[in-house]
């Protein structure tokens, strides 16, 4: 028999004749598919936004700092190390970072806050932007100028609260020394949950050489550097480790951190989580499949007489098998489509609620249709086999 459409129409007719039951049977698949669509879409959207946030810090950003382990001695980083890093062919940009606490004053307002001594390349390395004014220049750094760039928190506490909207051009006292405010840094804007880890910044950025001369501090906390395009963090770590051993002595230890590694580590954690939850979704699809099998068994028993009639009219075993298999597959596919529709709506609503870009994973749709098809066939085949194997006269006599 080659009339596929006729078979389909008849299968649909049979399912329509048992609307409530068909719907309840599909429910398991609907829920399973909804779970898969929702979880994968939200998971992927989250992964994308977090990855984007991490990359906004500069994906080739890295840091090195002096550290001490049980069998090593602490040997701080110095200016020669900065120059050495700057000279390496696989490094793009370098900025030492010195940090200290000082009291900051403007007229009678006081604030204790961290002072960051950095070089001008720090801002580019960190992907930071200016809101008002400008960053300081190499000239200002090299000539120990007392200029500073302030952040959101400082602007609020020392200026806006007291009626000054534009701090640029004003003077603040850091410790005992007056500094010109030449710029205000733009806030870090993140879209993922990472934003909750980044509070309001209350730092003041000052040229590192000014810090050394003005405050008499020369200890570098860490050196930020950017890897050139295409340089692998693992390779950089390896050569830097051996170079620093040569430079600083075999009994020293220097810690390193690479943003790219962080992104990869994060991605792999997210992948694992997505996989586990998808597995749970697949499990509920499986349970839905068992539901389909149950109903198909009941359906075969109820329609034993129909099977007998069809066989007496010339239906072969294959015809009957196909009829019942069709019904199982239609049930699971209808369930899948309903699940995709409802799951997508729910996903979009959730994404809207947490203010993410609307995103439905096409992979999840393909996956759930494929899964449901398999489940329809796998769980439909046993009842269908039972139906097709019925002896015509036994089926006809069935009451």
């Amino acid at each position, binding site marked *: *028999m*080659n*009339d596929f*459409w*006729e078979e389909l129409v*008849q299968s649909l*007719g*049979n399912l329509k*004749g048992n609307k409530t039951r068909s719907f309840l049977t599909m429910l398991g698949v609907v829920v399973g598919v909804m779970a898969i669509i929702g979880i994968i879409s939200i998971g992927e959207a989250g992964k994308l936004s977090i990855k984007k946030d991490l990359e906004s810090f500069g994906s080739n950003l890295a840091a090195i700092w002096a550290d001490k382990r049980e069998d090593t001695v602490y040997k701080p980083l110095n200016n020669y190390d900065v120059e050495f890093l700057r000279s390496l062919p696989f490094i793009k940009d370098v900025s030492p970072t010195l940090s200290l606490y000082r009291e900051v004053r403007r007229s009678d307002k006081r604030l204790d806050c961290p002072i960051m001594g950095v070089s001008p390349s720090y801002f580019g390395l960190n992907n930071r932007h200016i809101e008002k004014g400008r960053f300081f220049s190499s000239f200002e750094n090299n000539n120990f100028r007392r200029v500073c760039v302030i952040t959101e928190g400082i602007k609020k506490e020392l200026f806006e609260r007291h009626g000054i909207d534009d701090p640029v051009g004003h003077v603040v006292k850091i410790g005992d020394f007056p500094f010109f405010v030449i710029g205000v840094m733009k806030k870090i804007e993140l879209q993922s949950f990472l934003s909750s880890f980044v509070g309001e910044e209350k730092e003041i950025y000052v040229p590192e050489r000014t810090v050394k001369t003005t405050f008499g501090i020369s200890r570098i906390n860490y050196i930020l550097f950017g890897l050139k395009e295409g340089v692998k963090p693992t390779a950089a770590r390896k050569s830097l480790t051996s170079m620093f051993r040569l430079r600083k002595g075999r009994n020293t230890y220097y810690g390193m951190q690479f943003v790219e590694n962080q992104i990869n580590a994060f991605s792999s954690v997210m992948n694992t989580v997505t996989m586990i939850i998808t597995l749970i979704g697949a499990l509920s699809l499986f349970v839905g499949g068992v539901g389909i099998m149950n109903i198909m068994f009941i359906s075969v028993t109820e329609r034993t*007489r*129909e099977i*007998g*009639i*069809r*066989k*007496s*009219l*010339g*239906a*072969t*075993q*294959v*015809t009957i098998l196909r009829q019942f298999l069709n019904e199982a597959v239609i049930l699971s596919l209808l369930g899948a489509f309903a699940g995709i529709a409802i799951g997508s709506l729910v996903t979009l609503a959730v994404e809207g609620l947490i203010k993410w870009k609307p995103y439905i994973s096409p992979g999840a749709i393909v996956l759930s249709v494929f899964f449901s098809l398999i489940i329809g066939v796998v769980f439909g085949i046993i009842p269908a086999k039972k139906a097709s194997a019925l*002896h*015509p*006269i036994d089926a*006809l006599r069935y009451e």
Partner: protein
Amino acid sequence: MNLIVLKKISKIYKMGKVEVPALVDADLQIKKGEYLAIMGPSGSGKSTLMNVLGCLDVPTSGEYYLDSKDVGKLNDVEMASIRNQMIGFVFQTFNLLPRLNARKNVELPLIYAGVKRQERHIRADKLLESVGLSGRAEHLPSELSGGERQRVAIARSLANDPHLILADEPTGNLDSKSGEEIMKIFDSLNKSGVTIIVVTHENFIAEHADKSIHILDGRIERIEVHKK
């Protein structure tokens, strides 16, 4: 020429450990174009005989030749094809599919025969017209009277121009007037050359046939020839 040859056909049912013989050593020859009644009280084995003849049931022993083909050697597909092409069934309880309308019911054997949609439609309507149901094609079985349902069933049995019509108590569920109309259809079908076997336990039905085969306790007792 013989359409049907039965050689020592037996059918034994096993009920637990007890063997119940429903048909014992049945020998029978039926010519093409014959009109035959199978008679006997209930439980005599007449339905079993009809089921074996219709390739719905497989005998325990013996040989059955239908149109010179050894039915015992056929597989599922060949058996299905015989039921589809060679034989038309008419049952006491009509056995229409309740969710399909009259036309769709008549189309079923045509679907299994692989006839295209358009042609199916035309042939089904012609068949319904030939049994006097031209206006009833869209009706569900539940919307038809008993006599009308049986006429749909007859139209369905004729769908693929079978050589043989097997009717198992076709008037059993009908009032006498509808029953008489059904028998008239069989009579005219036989006149056009179709072999007809009717299972019945009523004499006035059997009298439509040329011969009656009387069955008792699974054995063919005697064959009675009707004079018309």
